[in-house]
């Protein structure tokens, strides 16, 4: 709970590190053939009026790759890549560097993407909640199903927040692939919630004697190995992706890694207690 609030607070105070996809602006990825320093690059680019710009290293050590990020938006921005090419050629020589990638997003589109991104994550979480509710309502009746649904949604919100927090901690940029990762996390993390709820439902049918609490407990224990295993296999591949997939896909892999891990313990430590709490207050 505390972690959630902390992340929320941080989110509103500082704001996540938005990539060009959401903030608008231009990003150029450069690769040099030999050792170059950031001040060198900045000096070369002085001839162009870049406004506020940041230059940072990108990718592995020894790759000599840099990201130049320009916030300014204006009529000339679309030609920025070309201007940069000329300026850098003048200082370093045209064959000593390469523009690997250019991304430019105008402010209107950036805003539109921001809006759609947030909306889709919220919509996905809501949909999952409804799905679980419907799925289990048929077995238990609407009220109970609702509890399952709510528990699942709260666990999902937690997962998303934790992932966002981790991304901010690691200072990764938020771009479209990060939102894609969040949506995948929403879809996947609800899996183990479903499995456990399924088990709870089965046990409730079989074991009539005991209290809800101990039934939930038993169900958790029974499914624990399975949950850890599935997430484990997914983590295996994600680790391969994170380490070997290259810098472009790395934030995506990182988000998925954090999100999946969070998914496991959120189901155990959050969804189930929530169901319990609701039930208790309901029975009272």
């Amino acid at each position, binding site marked *: 709970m505390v972690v959630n609030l902390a992340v929320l607070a941080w989110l509103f105070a500082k704001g996540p590190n938005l990539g060009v996809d959401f903030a608008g602006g231009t990003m150029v*990825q450069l*690769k040099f053939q030999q050792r170059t320093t950031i001040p060198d690059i900045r000096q070369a680019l002085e001839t162009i009026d870049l406004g506020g710009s940041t230059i940072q290293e990108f990718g592995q050590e020894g790759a000599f790759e840099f990201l130049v990020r320009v916030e300014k938006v204006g009529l000339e921005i*679309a*030609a920025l*890549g070309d201007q940069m090419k*000329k300026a850098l050629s*003048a200082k370093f020589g045209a064959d000593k560097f*390469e*523009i*690997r*990638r*250019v*991304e*430019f997003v*105008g402010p*209107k*589109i950036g805003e539109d993407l921001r809006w*759609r991104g947030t909306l*889709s994550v919220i919509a*996905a979480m809501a*949909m*999952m909640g409804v*799905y679980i509710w419907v799925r289990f309502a048929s077995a238990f009746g609407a009220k109970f199903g609702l509890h399952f649904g709510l528990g699942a949604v709260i666990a999902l919100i937690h997962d998303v927040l934790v992932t966002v927090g981790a991304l901010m901690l690691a200072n990764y940029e938020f771009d*479209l*692939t990060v939102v*894609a990762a969040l*949506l*995948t996390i*929403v*879809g*996947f993390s*609800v*899996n183990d919630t*479903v*499995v456990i709820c*399924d088990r709870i439902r*089965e046990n409730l049918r079989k074991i009539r004697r005991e209290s809800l609490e101990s039934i939930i407990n038993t169900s958790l224990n*029974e499914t624990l*190995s*399975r949950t850890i*295993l*599935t997430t*484990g*296999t*997914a*983590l*295996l*591949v*994600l*680790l*391969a*992706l994170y*380490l*070997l*997939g*290259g810098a*472009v*896909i790395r934030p*995506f892999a990182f988000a*998925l890694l954090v999100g999946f891990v969070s998914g496991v313990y959120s189901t155990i430590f959050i969804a189930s207690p929530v169901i319990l709490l609701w039930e208790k207050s309901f029975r009272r």
Partner: protein
Amino acid sequence: MRRGVLTRVIIFSVLALLSVLFLAPNFLGKKDSTGKTEMPNWWPDFLPSDAIHLGLDLQGGSHLVLEVKLDKAIENHIERLKSDLTNSIRDKGISGVSVERVEGTQLEIKVATASVDRVRSILKADFANLSEAKTPQTSASGTDFVMTLNREETRALRDYIVDQSLETIRNRIDQFGVSEPVIQRQGLNNILVQLPGIQDPQRAKDIIGKTALLEFKLVDDNVNPEDAAKSGAPPGRQVLFGQVGKGVAGASPAKVPYVLEARTLMTGEYIKDARVRPGEQLQGPYVELILNDQGGRLFEQITAANVKRRMAIVLDNNVYSAPVIQERIGGGRASITGSFDIKEARDLSIVLRAGALPAPVEIVEERTVGPSLGRDSITQGLTSFVVGGALVVLFMVAYYKGAGLVADVALVFNVLFMAAVLAGFQAVLTLPGIAGIVLTLGMAVDANVLINERIREEIRAGRAVRSAIEAGYQNALPAILDSNITTFLSGVILFQFGTGPIKGFAVTLCIGILTTVITAVYLTRIYYDYRIGARRLERISI
């Protein structure tokens, strides 16, 4: 049971064969000069012959979104309506009416009381595309109407302009020789352009984005250009600039003002063709315009009426040149000279040939990936696929032994089917798409884990092996379906929301889920059913 097994084995073998056929072009075909795959001669025509389409982030290329700026076009349209209305009123002999364009897209019509009814009837009869923007104000002297374009007309105009722009852009791109460009309408006023493998994205952007409105206007030599540039143009005249020379060492070339008559004598819509011609001696290359019949006649009239005056050739409000009209020019040819190099001349001819854009466009999104990054991404993607796959395979065997091996075989088929579906539907593979395939590897074994864990449980609880397998599959199925449905749902949301590479991820994710259910559940079941049917099953390696 045996028959059931055989049928299923046959079905899966057929599927596997189909998959191999779908994937064959990737290995057998060779890419020709336009990027299409060519199959060797013995490959029958009815079999698929397209290699997997790579997304821009793997192939290299540019993705552009252009916004069509409709405001200007709508203003021009209103301006035309204004002159139509003025003419119509004058022809009917109605007096006491003034029509002015205000606030960009509105017409203010001031009518003296006597003429109000007649004006109203004209508006209703001939100008039904106008509707009242504000309620008419009536005073002692007359009524003021404020009209604007009504909604259907605006929408129709918008659609027309965007479609026209799309066609013009398509014409321009056709002349570059990019293989398989994508040019589509996106949303209400955006155009999506994708140019795979483009070598010079800046040139492409320049050509695509140019409004390319060519105008012929007369130069007014009676007014001093320098003065007019400083203090503003006299009524009916405008000041436009041209450049002289190329500029020295990276500095911008000097700008020279011209005073022109604001009236446009002729526009580029009469151009039938535009060709680059080498110039004589010092002149450098120039662009020769070939006008259509109507244009030829019009040009002849203009030149005949204005011999010895200078005519400015203006492109997008830049004066390219302003030669003196020596004599009447028939034959429908004109030429544009300037300080071009051959590349500029060629690009100009492309743009003039394809025609002007009906409204200016602005680039609002660009994603360009160079080919080297694309290649690296493919390598990195494949590496993580191989390593991730190996890890999963090893793990399954280590933990579930025989049953793990069965699951691994199903995994191989899973990937085979996924790749075949991608190739078959000509879906585009992107870097996140590869990540999606890798992720599917990890999630596919999820189903097998569920089943195997259940089987283990049942065996531990004392069931006979055969019924344990039965029970394992039965009990695990609902949970498997649920979890895959939820992930599929988020895949669908991703597909709706995402662009380009993200869509690629959503596609592979969803395809992966479908193939996972088929292979991990049904394929492995075939194996167990076979074992069960073959002989009495005492133990299984699990």
